[in-house]
């Protein structure tokens, strides 16, 4: 893709919603093992609210899409995922502000802003077994590919792979943030549900926008 339009962004959110819907039982089960079992439900509620809200936008620009996604996700979800993704989308909206379409740099910056938003809202460091462990490596990989001058497709593919590996790596981690943090040792061996859904989201970005 050369430049991402608001319409394509909306299609991206729809693709994410579809993926989340398919995977929601798995996400809830992951959360059941170390948290409260609702992560799939929350993500599904959130993205279905997002697609709903986006379908009602009239002639939006990319920033408007991100902002509407932030508000609708937050208000439909609450929970941990709500503020984290709402902040992510809000930061992406800020990064996209003033652009009619998002080119390679513009879209990559929006993705990096999302990762940054998650990081800032949750105040989690990598290694604490949260969605940051998928988002942070994804951002790093994207930044590196960006710096290497690779095309958007390659940037997103690198980010998706890093997110997937990051999520995988949470299995070995001891949770210190979020509901699983009281589990101590017993959190080890289970993938963090937020990291799993993050990998799924970044993966869908690559599949949809990176083609």
């Amino acid at each position: 893709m050369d430049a991402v339009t608001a319409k394509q962004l909306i299609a991206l959110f729809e693709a994410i919603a579809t993926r989340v819907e398919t995977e929601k039982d798995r996400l809830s089960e992951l959360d059941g093992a170390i948290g409260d079992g609702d992560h799939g439900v929350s993500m599904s509620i959130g993205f279905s609210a997002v697609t709903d809200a986006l379908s009602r936008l009239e002639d939006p620009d990319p920033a408007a899409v991100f902002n509407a996604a932030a508000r609708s996700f937050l208000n439909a979800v609450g929970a941990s995922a709500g503020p984290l993704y709402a902040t992510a989308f809000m930061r992406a909206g800020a990064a996209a502000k003033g652009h009619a379409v998002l080119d390679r740099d513009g879209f990559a910056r929006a993705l990096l802003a999302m990762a940054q938003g998650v990081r800032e809202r949750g105040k989690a460091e990598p290694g604490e077994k949260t969605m940051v462990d998928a988002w942070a490596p994804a951002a790093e990989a994207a930044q590196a590919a960006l710096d290497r001058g690779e095309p958007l497709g390659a940037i997103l593919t690198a980010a998706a792979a890093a997110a997937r590996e990051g999520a995988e790596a949470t299995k070995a981690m001891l949770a210190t943030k979020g509901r699983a943090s009281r589990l101590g040792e017993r959190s080890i061996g289970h993938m963090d549900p937020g990291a799993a859904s993050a990998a799924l989201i970044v993966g869908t970005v690559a599949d949809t926008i990176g083609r």
Partner: protein
Amino acid sequence: MKTKKLINDPRYVVEEMLEGIVKAHPGHVRQLPHSPRSIVAVEANRPGKVGVVVGGGSGHEPTFLGYVGKGLADACPAGNVFASPPPDPILECAKAVNSGGGVLFLYGNYAGDVMNFDMAAEMAAMEDIEVRTVVTTDDVASAPLDRKAERRGVAGNVFIFKAAGAAADKMLPLDEVERVARKANENTFTVGVALSPCSLPQTRRPNFELGEDEMEIGMGIHGEPGVMRGPLQAADAVVDDMLDRILAEFPRGEARRAAVLVNSLGSTPLMELYVANRRVAERLAGENISVHRTLVGPYCTSLEMAGMSITLMALDDELAELLDHPCDCAMFRSG
């Protein structure tokens, strides 16, 4: 096998519950017309009185919604099942109950709740509403003593909310209400035990597994794993294990007094709770802790989870008086 639930479309279960609540208790609570997830007391907050906003995920009824009313909480934003409410309904609650005395946000310590209430507090500050926040951390089993601030807030909420609500009702200023809430939280200790899981309306699948004859001590009110899993013991032995954990932290001293809550996590019936309370009373007598007041019943539940929790609140005269202060809420009345 899917859990049987008497619900309609699970997507609307919270909305329908809220409607059922305001229809059942029109003298106590109402929904804000522009923010139906915000439940506020029918009686408007008195000028200058601190507004007390409690809240959290749904599925713990009568916690949190049931404690809105006269003399306790003034408002409650309702989240999805086991999910913190988002900032908007929290903010609307704050706006609705601010009568110039400021607002106390009082809720259990969970990452999601902290993020959402903090966002709401920032938004409230932008609207010149003074907000203080106290998070409850009474769940002894949820983190070691040296990481007390990381502990969860569970059934002890009832006592903590009650004390703070009474302080506000007595027209204490925001500083004092905040101090009381912190003090109440400091002195409240809960341990839970789960016997069988609950399941979310959307999944209708047990959100954890427990063997045919197993119990788990320390399990959280969302099914968060606890500290000890083992074969189900006789009630007295279970109570002893739970009380040992609580008493290890219960303040030392002369003339100790406690408020007791023996709480059902959902499907454990009163018969079992009272059997447990028999042992609690016996043990406390043995420890020379006098019982000022005992609550027994479903006060903070986890949908239909089986199990119970025991809470002790260490009382001085101030806390005892605040607990005795009358309140009249949708689902709780005392004093």
